[in-house]
């Protein structure tokens, strides 16, 4: 199967591999997995006080397409607000990397990882804000 140059580049030189402290303020962690191929993906975002994603890291166990998809989205989410990050669609990921049809689920995984990370971040912020709101 012929893979695109972009896909191979992200696979061979993945960007932003690693982890942030899970409990750190401003960090949202998304964990997702694809049963079809057993891929597991962890995507973390670090959000600044202005609500913009400053940094992102990922760790993925899976095929080349899953690694490339997660590497790509760590680049894409940087500099975006949470709502903008949520607008990233799997079709855009698949198109950018020219994923073959059998690998579309890898881009779904990456989209869902962003959603899960944003949700985790918002949940953490919510639980931190709630006591103050009660006190007011």
């Amino acid at each position, binding site marked *: 199967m012929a893979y695109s140059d972009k896909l191979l580049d992200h696979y061979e030189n993945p960007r932003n591999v690693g982890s942030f402290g899970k409990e750190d303020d401003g960090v949202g962690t998304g*964990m*997702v*997995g*694809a*049963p*079809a*191929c*057993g891929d*597991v993906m*962890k995507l973390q975002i670090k959000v600044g006080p202005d609500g913009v994603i400053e940094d992102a890291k990922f*760790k993925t*166990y899976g095929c080349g397409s899953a690694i490339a998809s997660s590497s790509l989205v760590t680049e894409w989410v940087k500099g975006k607000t949470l709502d903008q990050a949520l607008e990233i669609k799997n079709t855009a990921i698949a198109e950018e990397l020219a994923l073959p049809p059998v690998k579309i*689920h890898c881009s*779904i*995984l990456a989209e*869902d*990882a962003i959603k*899960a990370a944003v949700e985790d971040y918002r949940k953490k912020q919510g639980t931190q804000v709630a006591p103050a709101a009660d006190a007011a």
Partner: protein
Amino acid sequence: MSDTSQVLPEADLFSRDHFALFGLPRRFVIDERALEGRYHELQSAAHPDRHAHRPEQERRLSMQWATRINEGYRLLRSPLTRARYLLELEGVDVGAENNTAMPADFLMQQMAWREALDDARNAGDPEALDALSATLRAARSGAESQLVRELDEEHNLSAAAATVRRMMFIARLGEDIAAAHEKLEN
């Protein structure tokens, strides 16, 4: 002269009900010896050699039967594919391609196992691979017991679909461990 129709239910060739073909009740727990026995009976009835001197149409039919029998046998023999098939018969899609929301603790566990596999592979450590295989076997048998409850006793199909998804991860990891083992041995 042997005739397929004596053993093979004539109209069933294109039916997708493998349980019926093998004379088994639609349950997760099956009588494995009955499955084996019926498999050999069907195979020998449908074997193309038996129909070598028969008209072409009958030969073609016996080939199709042989394929269907093999397919059904393989599917029913493995607990994972059997469970998935039972859910399919009930109209439940396990969402293998698009259901990515696995429980977080399960995914953490998968990550840890994947890391252990990487470490064992890099260190060329067959004992570490064996230990991981044993852990995985325990996880698989735990999931199978859960399926007995969810499918045969409680008829809780959404819970069973979630268990099947977990088993798919475990099966995939098991294949990767086996491949790593093979590589070490060569």
